[in-house]
């Protein structure tokens, strides 16, 4: 993996910083405008979840090469309370709070690969991968 960008997430301005960093890194890789908006939106959802549910955490952005193709990798990580029922949290419309419950399932739809690792008391790590379209 190449160099990483780490954005500490503590409050709402960090959500803005994280998504802007993701957009910038994606643009430098060569993603088109529509994909950049998807990437930034997915990051925004994950970063806000950190603020809302874990209080603090970080977003790590990196570029990787897999099977000969370039990939933008977003890791959202926190040591918060974790998610007791991941299946439920990934359902459209399920929120434990006041949210619309579309952040996690929506972020999943916006990328090519989505992984979530969480357990009560063990924090939450969400990894997104977006493959650069061929010929870029």
């Amino acid at each position: 993996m190449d160099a990483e960008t780490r954005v500490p997430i503590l409050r709402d301005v960090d959500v803005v910083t994280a998504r802007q960093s993701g957009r910038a890194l994606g643009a430098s890789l060569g993603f088109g405008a529509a994909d950049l908006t998807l990437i930034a939106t997915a990051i925004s959802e994950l970063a806000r979840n950190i603020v809302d549910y874990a209080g603090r955490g970080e977003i790590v952005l990196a570029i990787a090469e897999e099977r000969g193709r370039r990939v933008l990798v977003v890791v959202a990580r926190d040591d918060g309370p974790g998610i007791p029922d991941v299946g439920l949290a990934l359902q459209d419309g399920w929120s434990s709070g006041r949210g619309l419950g579309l952040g996690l399932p929506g972020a999943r739809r916006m990328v090519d690969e989505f992984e979530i690792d969480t357990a009560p008391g063990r924090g939450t790590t969400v990894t997104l991968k977006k493959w650069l379209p061929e010929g870029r």
Partner: protein
Amino acid sequence: MRVPVLKQGACLVAVFQPGLTDAELLALREDLSVRVGEHRARGVVLDVTALDLIDSFGARTLRGIALALRLRGAETVLVGIQPDVAFAMAQLGLTLEGVDTALDLEEGTALLSRRLAARRHNGR
């Protein structure tokens, strides 16, 4: 970074700036609700042309603003959602149900004028 609110005839126009934080968006909600009273505004245009994304918090708050302003007696229309932003919102499943949308400030203002004229005639 705040959201400038301009007066245009009987309407208010809130011009969203890029990089808006959650707290600023929530502040706008309060602000607009108060100003509608001060200016006796009948219509409000929320102009989001400059926003490079609207996530689920943004959509929920914008919808809340539109619904609250209607209860304060002002018709509200959201204008300027860019193509890529609309696409990402559709992917998320954000539909902004119950909120009027128009292409841009011009279309939105025209829609509001017709709406307000009709309201005068139908006695709503």
